[in-house]
């Protein structure tokens, strides 16, 4: 079985992450309950006419994947695997409202086509002229981890050499409005730095695209080695710690081997207690990191956590803004990530320095 490496990253988020030469050097703070991405200059990557036609999710996905390909020094990949919770949700909203508002008349196909969940993966394939394997996973907060698992299996078996994976989701007005009604979005504006102390229900919604080239060939420029990923549709709160320990044991690791624990806390008072045991008991003496105050919550927000872990392992630095506790390590070899959303679709991911 071959080893699997993260050979490149490409990130578009609510931070200036699109430039791979920097690493959260000037962090943007927000005071809101919905935060959008900081756009790169899309025209540097796609012709303006094409960019105008593209949905936001497609634009973010295509450009983040181009950044990832550049970073990997590749013209093309063997396969493309995309994760998205909602797809190009603005187009879905546009098409549904047009059906209702115009009583099924005067409709045009563009927003219907862009509503198809695999439209981002399909567009990336079109842009790259990549005729390889092309899958799209749409399973809520495990959409991105599904891409990771799929790519890992194929690379381990040497079925492919380089696979582009990524997570992408965009904000849509109607979706935001109705998620405010059911308290999935916080009622009040929250300062990024106070997210975990907000004491209220719901999350600060965000959007973004984080793409990576995974490979079974290690390079001098590789970011990390992927050790394992596990997905769970359900997991009782009381079993999170034991499940994490079992996962480490399966990979011949122990709590003390974990240099950094990266957690998906989003400040939702109803669900952040899924992290409590790991934070204050099991990994109390390990350095801990969080990130959703920087990128917001969305179905593929954990791909931002994966980006953060990759950058930490490669640069061997941790920006102060993501530190969750006072434990400090001097070197970072092994990272464990844990994420869930609203108590469902939990994931554990293990990365190692390479």
């Amino acid at each position: 079985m071959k080893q699997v490496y993260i050979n490149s990253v490409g990130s578009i988020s609510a931070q200036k992450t699109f430039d791979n030469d920097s690493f959260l050097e000037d962090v943007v703070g927000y005071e809101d309950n919905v935060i959008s991405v900081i756009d790169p200059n899309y025209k540097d990557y796609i012709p303006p006419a094409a960019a105008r036609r593209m949905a936001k999710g497609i634009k973010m996905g295509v450009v983040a994947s181009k950044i990832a390909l550049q970073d990997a020094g590749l013209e093309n990949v063997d396969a493309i695997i995309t994760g998205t919770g909602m797809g190009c949700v603005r187009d879905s909203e546009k098409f549904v409202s047009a059906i209702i508002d115009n009583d099924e008349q005067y409709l045009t196909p563009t927003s219907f086509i862009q509503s198809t969940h695999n439209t981002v993966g399909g567009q990336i394939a079109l842009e790259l002229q990549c005729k390889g394997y092309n899958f799209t996973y749409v399973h809520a907060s495990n959409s991105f981890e599904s891409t990771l698992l799929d790519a890992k299996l194929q690379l381990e078996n040497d079925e492919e050499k380089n696979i582009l994976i990524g997570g992408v989701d965009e904000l849509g007005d109607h979706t935001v409005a109705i998620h405010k009604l059911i308290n999935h979005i916080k009622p009040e504006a929250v300062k990024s730095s106070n997210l975990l102390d907000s004491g209220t229900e719901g999350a600060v919604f965000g959007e973004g695209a984080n793409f990576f080239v995974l490979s079974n060939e290690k390079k001098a420029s590789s970011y990390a080695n992927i050790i394992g990923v596990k997905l769970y549709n359900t997991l009782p709160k009381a079993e999170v710690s034991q499940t994490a320990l079992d996962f480490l044991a399966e990979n011949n690791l122990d709590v003390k081997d974990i240099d950094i624990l990266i957690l998906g806390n989003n400040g939702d008072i109803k669900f952040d207690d899924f992290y409590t045991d790991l934070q204050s008991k099991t990994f109390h003496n390990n350095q801990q990191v969080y990130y959703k105050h920087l990128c917001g919550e969305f179905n593929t927000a954990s791909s931002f956590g994966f980006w953060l872990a990759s950058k930490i392992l490669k640069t061997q630095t941790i920006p102060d803004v993501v530190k969750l506790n006072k434990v400090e390590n001097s070197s970072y070899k092994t990272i464990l990530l844990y994420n869930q959303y609203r108590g469902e679709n939990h994931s554990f991911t293990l990365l190692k320095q390479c």
Partner: protein
Amino acid sequence: MSKGIAITGMGIISAIGNNVAENYHALLNGNKGITRVAKIKTNHVNEIMVGEIASTNNEFEQQLNLNSDNNYSRTAFLGAVAAKEAVKHAGITNINTYKTGLISATSVGGMDMTERYFYDYLTNKTTQKYIEGHHAGDSTQKIAEQLGIEKSLVTTISTACSSAANAIMLGARLIKSGELDRVIVGGSDCLSKFTINGFKTLMILSDTYNTPFDENRKGLNLGEAAAFLVLESDAVVKSENKTVLAYVKGYGNANDAYHQTASSDNGDGATIAMEKALKVANLTPNDIDYINAHGTATGNNDLSEGRAIIRVFGENVPDFSSTKAYTGHTLAAAGGIEAVYSVLALQNNVIYPNLNFETQMKEFDITPQLELKEKPLKTVMSNSFGFGGNCSTVIFSKEP
């Protein structure tokens, strides 16, 4: 590591039957499930025909013993019914005895409720329960709950009309690698105003019965359906002394990289998908006894797929037919529906007729199988192609 990927159970609900037996009976007797749409109020009612399932959501609610405060979309109802039949058929009493996962496919997800309550959500608290049911993963989570799958690998694939074929592919890979011992794979999609109007704007809906591979084909009929297979590893089959219905022998996915919705003229993606599947199966084109074609009856698909079949099989194109004339095009579920039909074909050594065919296409001289045909079958190939250039082929066989 498992060498064989055994299919030990199947479940299905479609416009031609509420279970496997009813579907098979309709296939043998040439009974189409295509009618005017009854459950969705649409201005296009007289311009389209659909493959609609008779049962109402209320009936499914009772069948599944759900409280009236549930927030199931029709996609979730259909999926739960079909997946439960598959698990029962496989003789599984305790689902968590083995590492069991669920891979489902959908394109519509909870859109049927979203389009119904889109503006109503803003003012009516009682309908807001459906907001959480919109995203595509929701129906899969509900199906997992119905099956009692807990603390396990559950995910959803959405690659338009090849989705369920891709779910089978991932499931096979998960068993081969030892990640899971058993996996329930398939897909579910209900009819919606969203897809009716979407395909209408693309001008690929027929106003009458769809006619796959016919020169004068006018487009597709949308259908709703769900179908699931139970896949098990060699080890589970052996220790449980399971009856194996058939095996997943090969699979391949490729991208046409030609257009967001249309297939390339020469079917590049389809050709690569079929070739990859043959390679994984370690078979040659001559080994394929029957192709259950994608055959949507759109001008574009049938030409592109036909040319791809000729590219792969040359002078020796095996018997082929599309069953879309029976069920309509059931989008993300289609690969699951046709997987069930392929396994039934293998088990019973029959090839289903390609209904409604009248006139030979002029671009090539291959003709689908027009009558029910009995013939010993060892391997069946099933094609599923979707938007975004997504092309998938799965090969089923009697032998591992």
